[in-house]
């Protein structure tokens, strides 16, 4: 199959895998301390988890609406004040639950891929 077809397949696969996992990566990133948009983009950047910074904002808006993150303003040394995102109690609980489910799930997938399901 042509290499560009394989590339499209990879992109689609990544999109599917990110759906449902990336939001928890965002939450996990916020566990330590509140962060602003660009900080989050930088720590999740690299092309595997997000392919461009802007894709974070629809996710953050959704997490906020769900009550998992809340926002506040803090002055910035450069330019306008920044909107910071911080985890709520529900947000903390959501990451915990995800961590509990993800560990066995990821391990099972890896075992499958290595040819030893169970």
């Amino acid at each position: 199959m042509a290499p560009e077809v394989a590339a499209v397949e990879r992109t689609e696969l990544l999109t599917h895998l990110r759906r449902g996992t990336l939001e928890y990566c965002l939450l996990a990133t916020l566990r330590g301390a509140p962060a602003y948009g660009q900080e989050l983009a930088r720590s999740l950047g690299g092309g595997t988890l997000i392919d461009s910074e802007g894709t974070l904002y629809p996710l953050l808006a959704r997490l906020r609406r769900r009550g998992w993150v809340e926002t506040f303003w803090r002055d910035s040394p450069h330019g306008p004040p920044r909107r910071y995102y911080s985890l709520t109690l529900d947000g903390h609980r959501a990451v915990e639950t995800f961590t509990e489910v993800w560990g066995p799930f990821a391990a099972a997938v890896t075992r499958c891929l290595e040819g030893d399901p169970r």
Partner: protein
Amino acid sequence: MITGRHELLERYLADLERRLAAADPGERADILASVREHVESELAMLDRPATSADVAAALESLGSVDTVAAAWTPEDGGATAAPGRAHPAGLAVAAGVLAALSVLLIWLPPVAGSLGVVALVLGIVALRRRDEPRWAALTGVVVGATTVVLGLVVLLGALVVFAPHSETGRTTDGVSVPAVSPAP
């Protein structure tokens, strides 16, 4: 400040707003505001007046409007997103087809009228969704509304003309029921 800078950003935000038409208004406003803040604070970090090339670069790292909009999913998650997209595409077409059927069946006013109502409703729903073929939805709305009105007019006319005969119609119906029902 260079006006071109604002233009690029405003155009990007306007495009994004259109692409997020299906989102909850509050969520949409939230996304648009944070994208704007992202770009503005990125430009403020330059510590010099931003040029339109700077704006273009900031927008580039945000990703295309399509990419950002694609990160938004309906509230119930990605699982329903795919069938959800396939289904509405048929909505406008269904409206158009029903409208056409209602025209063909206009000599049966109650049938044509009901089809018209359904075509009208489907057409309106389809029009409010961005990913629907507009011409089919519009056909559904316009033709559906016309056949509803025509159906009502014909129906009212028929009621006025045939009202005295409706009694006999009912008795023949009444007769046919016992004729079918005798059972051992």
